[in-house]
C-alpha cells in the first residue's frame, strides 16, 4: 500500500518536474497583447470571423492580419476595446445582417416526393434543387441548422425568416445555402444593390426604374405594417409622397393580375402609406451608416440630386446640394403644379432628407456662382451633376415670339415661383405630354375660359398619363387632334390673335411604333386664341460647359444631354457622375430617382477606392424572360380601387389637390388583390386543387 502511494507520488512528481522544466526550456515568447485582445473578444469560439477560435483570431489581430472589428458577435463594443489595446482605428464596419430573398416557400410545388433527404444541399446535388424556379428556396432549412445563434426560424409559409435582432452576421447561413438566396450584407450594401438576372424579382419590381420591392411593401400594407411598408419603399425611393402622387407607375403595366383583370393599383398604395406617415405627425426614423468622411457635391436639387444625396448620406458619406433656384425640389417644385403635388407636401418630404444631415445651398448656379474647379478645390471627392432639362424646345414657326406666347416649363416654373402672369380668355397649349396637360389644367384654374390642346397625333399616341388626360377632359379642356401648327398670327399690337394649323392624317408607323402624322394639303385652319403655350419637350441646359475649363472633357450627346454609362452613371470625367433629366433628356421622376441611386452606388465605389463598374448580369430596363407570362391561372376578377377625386366644380377654381388618398379600408382591400408574385410562383386567388 505504502509502496503504491509512494510510487504514484513519485510518478506525479517526476511528470510535474519534467513539465515544469519543459515549460521553461520550450518557452515560446507570446505577445502579451494576444491574451489582452482575446479578453476583448466574445469567447464563443464560433469561427464566424474565419479563424479557428477566439485565440487564433487574437493572434491574427496582433499579427496584423485581422482588423480590430474581427469579432462578429462582439460587434462595435469589442472592436473599440480591441482597438484600444492595439492602438488602432476601430474602423467603420457596419453590422451585417442576413436576409432571405425568396418568399416562395410552400406555395412552390414540392418536386421531391420521396421521404428521406432533409437537406437543401443534398437536394441541390440531386436535381439542381429546382422547386419552381431555379434560384428559389428549397425550404429544408440548412440555414436554420447552420445558424449558431438561433436567429432563423421556419415561417409557417415554408420559408426561413431571419430574426434581425438575434442575427450577428456570421455568414454561416449564407455558406450553408446551396441556392444563394439567403445572404448576409450590411445596410449600405442592400441600399445600393441593383436588380440582377439571378435575383428573385416579380415583373413589377423589374419594371420599376427605382427597383422598389413592390410585392413586399404591398404585403406589409396587407399585414397592417404601414411603417414597414414605408421603410421598404425608402430603401429604394426617398420621394414616396411625390411619387405616390405623380408617378405614371410603369410597374402597373407589368402587373401579372393585369393580364386577366385590372392591375393592382400599386402607386395608390404607395401614396396611402406615405400620406399616413405624414399625417401621423411623426417621421419614421431612418438609419445611416457611420460617417466615412467622404464629401460629395451635388449640383441640382431635383429628384435625381435629392435621391443621390439621400443614398450617399445613408451609406455614410457627406452630401452637399447646390441648387440654382430659390428652393430645392427641381421639376417637382417648379414643373409640377400645386394641384398635383402640393408644395407643403414636397417641403415635408425634402425636410426629411435634409434632416439626415444633407447640406444645401440655394440660389447658386453652376458656371455663374461656382464652377467644378471651385468644388474640387473645396475638397469634394466626387461630383453629381443633375441639372435637369429646363430648356423648352421651340416650334420654329413664325410668330412664336409674339406677346402672349409662352413655353411649357418656363410658364409652369414662373407660376410655381408665384409670378403673376396675365391669363388670356382663350388659350391653346401645343403638345401631348404631361407638361402640356399640366399647362392646360393650370390655365383652367387660373381662370381661362376656353382651353385647347393642339396635338399633331391622336389621343392614343399622347405620351401623357391616361388618368391625367381624362381629368383634363373632365375639367373642360377641348382637344384638337391631328393638328400641326404652322404659324402664329398676331394683331396690330404684336399680341397673339390666331394659331394657324394644318390638319393631319395618320400614315405609316415610324421608329417609335406610332403612326406618323402626314399633313393634308390645303387644310389650313385658324383657331382664335389670345394665349399660346408650347410644351413639346425639354432639353438640358448645358451652357455651363462653355464657361468651365475643367469640363473640357465632358461629353455632350446630340440631344444635348450629358454622355454617361447608363448603369454606373459615370460621365467622361471619372469624378463626375450624372443622372436625371440632365443625363437622359426629359423623363420620369421615378427614372431620376433610380438614376440618383445608381449614381450613389458608383460614387460610393469611386470614393472608397473600388473600381466603378456595373454588377454582372445587371437587369436595368430589361425583363427576365421567364417571368413574363401570357396567361395567369387562378385569378378571380375583382375591380381595382377607384381613386377618390375632388369634384370637378370644386377643383377647377382652386389649386387644392385634385387626387385624393385611398381610405385604409380600400387600401387594405387593394393590397389583397396583389398576387405576391416572384419570378415564377405567385399566390392565386383560387387554388388549383379546389
Amino acid at each position, binding site marked *: 500500500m505504502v509502496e503504491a502511494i509512494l510510487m*504514484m507520488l513519485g510518478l506525479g512528481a517526476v*511528470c510535474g518536474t*519534467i*513539465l515544469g522544466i*519543459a515549460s521553461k526550456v*520550450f518557452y515560446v515568447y507570446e505577445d502579451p497583447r494576444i491574451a489582452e485582445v482575446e479578453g476583448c473578444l466574445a469567447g464563443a469560439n464560433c469561427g464566424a470571423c474565419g479563424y479557428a477560435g477566439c485565440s487564433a483570431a487574437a493572434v491574427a489581430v496582433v499579427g496584423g492580419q485581422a482588423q480590430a472589428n474581427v469579432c462578429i458577435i462582439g460587434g462595435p463594443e469589442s472592436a473599440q476595446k480591441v482597438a484600444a489595446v492595439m492602438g488602432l482605428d476601430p474602423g467603420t464596419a457596419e453590422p451585417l445582417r442576413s436576409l432571405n430573398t425568396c418568399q416562395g416557400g410552400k406555395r412552390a410545388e414540392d418536386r421531391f416526393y420521396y*421521404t428521406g*433527404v*432533409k437537406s437543401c444541399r*443534398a437536394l441541390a446535388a440531386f436535381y439542381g434543387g429546382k422547386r419552381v424556379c431555379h434560384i428559389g428556396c428549397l425550404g429544408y432549412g440548412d440555414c436554420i441548422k447552420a445558424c449558431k445563434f438561433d436567429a432563423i426560424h421556419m415561417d409557417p409559409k415554408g420559408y426561413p425568416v431571419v430574426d434581425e435582432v438575434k442575427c450577428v452576421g456570421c455568414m454561416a447561413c449564407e455558406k450553408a445555402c446551396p441556392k444563394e438566396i439567403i445572404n448576409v450584407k450590411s445596410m449600405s450594401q442592400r441600399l445600393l444593390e441593383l436588380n440582377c438576372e439571378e435575383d428573385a424579382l416579380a415583373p413589377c419590381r423589374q419594371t420599376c426604374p427605382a427597383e422598389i420591392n413592390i410585392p413586399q411593401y404591398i404585403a406589409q400594407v396587407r399585414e397592417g405594417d404601414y411603417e414597414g411598408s414605408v421603410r421598404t419603399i425608402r430603401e429604394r425611393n426617398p420621394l414616396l409622397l411625390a411619387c405616390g402622387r405623380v408617378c405614371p407607375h410603369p410597374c402597373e403595366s407589368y402587373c401579372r393580375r393585369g393580364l386577366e383583370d385590372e392591375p393592382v393599383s400599386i402607386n395608390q398604395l404607395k401614396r396611402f402609406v406615405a400620406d399616413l406617415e405624414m399625417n401621423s405627425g411623426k417621421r419614421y426614423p431612418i438609419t445611416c451608416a457611420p460617417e466615412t468622411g467622404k464629401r460629395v457635391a451635388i449640383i441640382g436639387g431635383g429628384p435625381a440630386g435629392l435621391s443621390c444625396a439621400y443614398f450617399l448620406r445613408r451609406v455614410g458619406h457627406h452630401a452637399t446640394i447646390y441648387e440654382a433656384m430659390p428652393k430645392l425640389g427641381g421639376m417637382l417644385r417648379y414643373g409640377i403644379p400645386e394641384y398635383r403635388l402640393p408644395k407643403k407636401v414636397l417641403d415635408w418630404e425634402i425636410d426629411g432628407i435634409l434632416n439626415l444631415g444633407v447640406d444645401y445651398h440655394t440660389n447658386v448656379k453652376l458656371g455663374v456662382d461656382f464652377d467644378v474647379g471651385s468644388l474640387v478645390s473645396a475638397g469634394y471627392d466626387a461630383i453629381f451633376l443633375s441639372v435637369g432639362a429646363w430648356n423648352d424646345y421651340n416650334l420654329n414657326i413664325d410668330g412664336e415670339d409674339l406677346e402672349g406666347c409662352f413655353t411649357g416649363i418656363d410658364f409652369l416654373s414662373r407660376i410655381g415661383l408665384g409670378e403673376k402672369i396675365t391669363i388670356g380668355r382663350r388659350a391653346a397649349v401645343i403638345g401631348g405630354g404631361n407638361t402640356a396637360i399640366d399647362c392646360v389644367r393650370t390655365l383652367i384654374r387660373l381662370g381661362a375660359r376656353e382651353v385647347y390642346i393642339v396635338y399633331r397625333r391622336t389621343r392614343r399616341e399622347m405620351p401623357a398619363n391616361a388618368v391625367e388626360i381624362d381629368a383634363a377632359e373632365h375639367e373642360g379642356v377641348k382637344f384638337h387632334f391631328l393638328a400641326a401648327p404652322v404659324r402664329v398670327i398676331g394683331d396690330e399690337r404684336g399680341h397673339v390673335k390666331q394659331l394657324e394649323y394644318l390638319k393631319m392624317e395618320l400614315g405609316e408607323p415610324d421608329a417609335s411604333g406610332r403612326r406618323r402624322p402626314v399633313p393634308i394639303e390645303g387644310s389650313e385652319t385658324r383657331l382664335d386664341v389670345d394665349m399660346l403655350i408650347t410644351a413639346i419637350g425639354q432639353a438640358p441646359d448645358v451652357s455651363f460647359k462653355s464657361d468651365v475649363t475643367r469640363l473640357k472633357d465632358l461629353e455632350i450627346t446630340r440631344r444635348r444631354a450629358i454622355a454617361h454609362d447608363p448603369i454606373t452613371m459615370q460621365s467622361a470625367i471619372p469624378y463626375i457622375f450624372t443622372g436625371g433629366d440632365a443625363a437622359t433628356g426629359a423623363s420620369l421622376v421615378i427614372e431620376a430617382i433610380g438614376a440618383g441611386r445608381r449614381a450613389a452606388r458608383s460614387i460610393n465605389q469611386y470614393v472608397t477606392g473600388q473600381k466603378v463598374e456595373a454588377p454582372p448580369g445587371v437587369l436595368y430596363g430589361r425583363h427576365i424572360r421567364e417571368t413574363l407570362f401570357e396567361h395567369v391561372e387562378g385569378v378571380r376578377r375583382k375591380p381595382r380601387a377607384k381613386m377618390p377625386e375632388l369634384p370637378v366644380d370644386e377643383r377647377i377654381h382652386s389649386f387644392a389637390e385634385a387626387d385624393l388618398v385611398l381610405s385604409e379600408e380600400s387600401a387594405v382591400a387593394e393590397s389583397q388583390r396583389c398576387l405576391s408574385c416572384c419570378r415564377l410562383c405567385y399566390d392565386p386567388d383560387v387554388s388549383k386543387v379546389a
Partner: protein
Amino acid sequence: MGDYIVLAISCILVNNILLAQYLGNCPFLGTSKKMETAVGMAMAVVFVLVMAGVITWIVNTYILQKYDLVFLQTIAFILVIAALVQFVEMFLKKSIPALYSGLGIFLPLITTNCAVMGVCLINMKEEYNFLQALVASFSYAVGYGLALVLFAGIRERILLARVPTPLQDTSIALVTAGILSLTFFAFKGMV
C-alpha cells in the same frame, strides 16, 4: 522480420482498433463528417499513439513490473499519457511549429482517448517486447486512421442518399459503421 509484418497486418486490418475492437468511437463519429477533419484527426492519433505506446511500455516494464505494482497500470498510464501529450505539445510549439499548427486542436483532444489507452493496455496484456509494442502501436494508429478516412468518405456520400427519416444522421452512421466492421471481419482468418 516476418513476425513484425504479420503483427502490423493483424493490428491494421484484422484487429482494427475501431472496427474490430470498437474503441475510440466518439471521435470516430464526431470527426468523420468531413474528410478534412478526419485526416487531421488520423494524423494526430498516429502521433500520440506511437508516443504513448513507447512511454507506457517503459513505465510498465521498468517501474510497475519491477516493484510488482501492475495493479496501478490504468491510473499510472493516464498520468503518464497526459503529461506526455502536454510535453509533446510544448516541444512541438517551440521546435516544429509547422507540425504543431497542422495537428491543431486534435492533439490535446485525444489525450485520454480510449483508443490510446486501449492500445497501451493491449500491448501490456500481449506482453510484447519493446519493438513489438512500437510496431503494434503504430499499426493500430494506422488502422484507426484508415477506418476514419474510409468512413468520412462514406458519410460524405450518405448525405446525398435517400435516408428514411428515423434513420438520419447518427443512426445511419452507426449502421454504416456496423457494415464496415463486418467487411473488416473478412480479414479474420488471415493471421
